[in-house]
């Protein structure tokens, strides 16, 4: 799939940054972090649109319901993690954000897998 690499790179950058914030006990995350997170969110929204278009035009036998729900849920994970980091202003809040980012990475990998397996 087309946007897997940028999504995974951005998620990794956000994840590493979050680990640094956990180690330094910086919370809540600053504006610059949220700017990067917003870029990730924007790319995920683009992926949602592109994914739906590709799904409707592809000849691959992609499991539609699963694929679509992953496309939507992966977008929701980012604001959920951000909200937890803002509500819980401690290391734990940033830890929860990290869980959300790991989820994005796992879901993105699964999305890619669903697409590839359908092409085989």
């Amino acid at each position, binding site marked *: 799939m087309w946007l897997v690499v940028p999504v995974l790179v951005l998620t990794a950058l956000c994840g590493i940054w979050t680990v640094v914030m956990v180690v330094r006990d910086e919370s809540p995350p600053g504006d610059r972090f949220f700017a990067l997170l917003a870029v990730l969110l924007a790319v995920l929204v683009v992926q949602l649109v592109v994914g739906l278009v590709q799904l409707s035009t592809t000849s691959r036998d992609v499991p539609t319901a699963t694929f679509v729900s992953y496309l939507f849920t992966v977008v929701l994970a980012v604001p*959920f993690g951000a909200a937890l980091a803002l509500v819980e202003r*401690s290391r734990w809040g940033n830890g929860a954000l990290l869980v959300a980012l790991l989820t994005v990475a796992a879901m993105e990998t699964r999305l890619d897998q669903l697409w590839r397996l359908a092409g085989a």
Partner: protein
Amino acid sequence: MPEPTTPAAGTVREISTGPGRILVAAYAVFAVAATGRSLVQLGTDADRAPLAYSLSLLAAVLYLVATGCLLSGGPTARRVALVSVVVEAAGVLVVGTLSYVATDLFPDKTVWSHFGQGYGFLPLVLPFLGLWWLRETGKATLP
């Protein structure tokens, strides 16, 4: 700035704060994953493995309840969370064992099959983390 984490004398610590936030994030992920999985399974071919799919739905409900309790907090949420986490622990242990010894019962996988192997064994770890957290926060501090 870290918030003060010491609870007032004679009170129990709120389950929705501190490490509870990590749990809520993890539970929310599994709530969504299990709900999505069970709906897709029941919606596409419910007849193929009714037991497995019903268990997926049960897991989904339990994860949703636990997520809600951890988000809201309070004494009632604590009690409900305890019940759901205990059932969840029992579920993953029973289904995990059965999926190895009675494979014919499960023609398709559930979230709990093989102790949650498909999900990095997190379904096995989560209820025990939940129990630990409920116990940890439930310790009343003496006045």
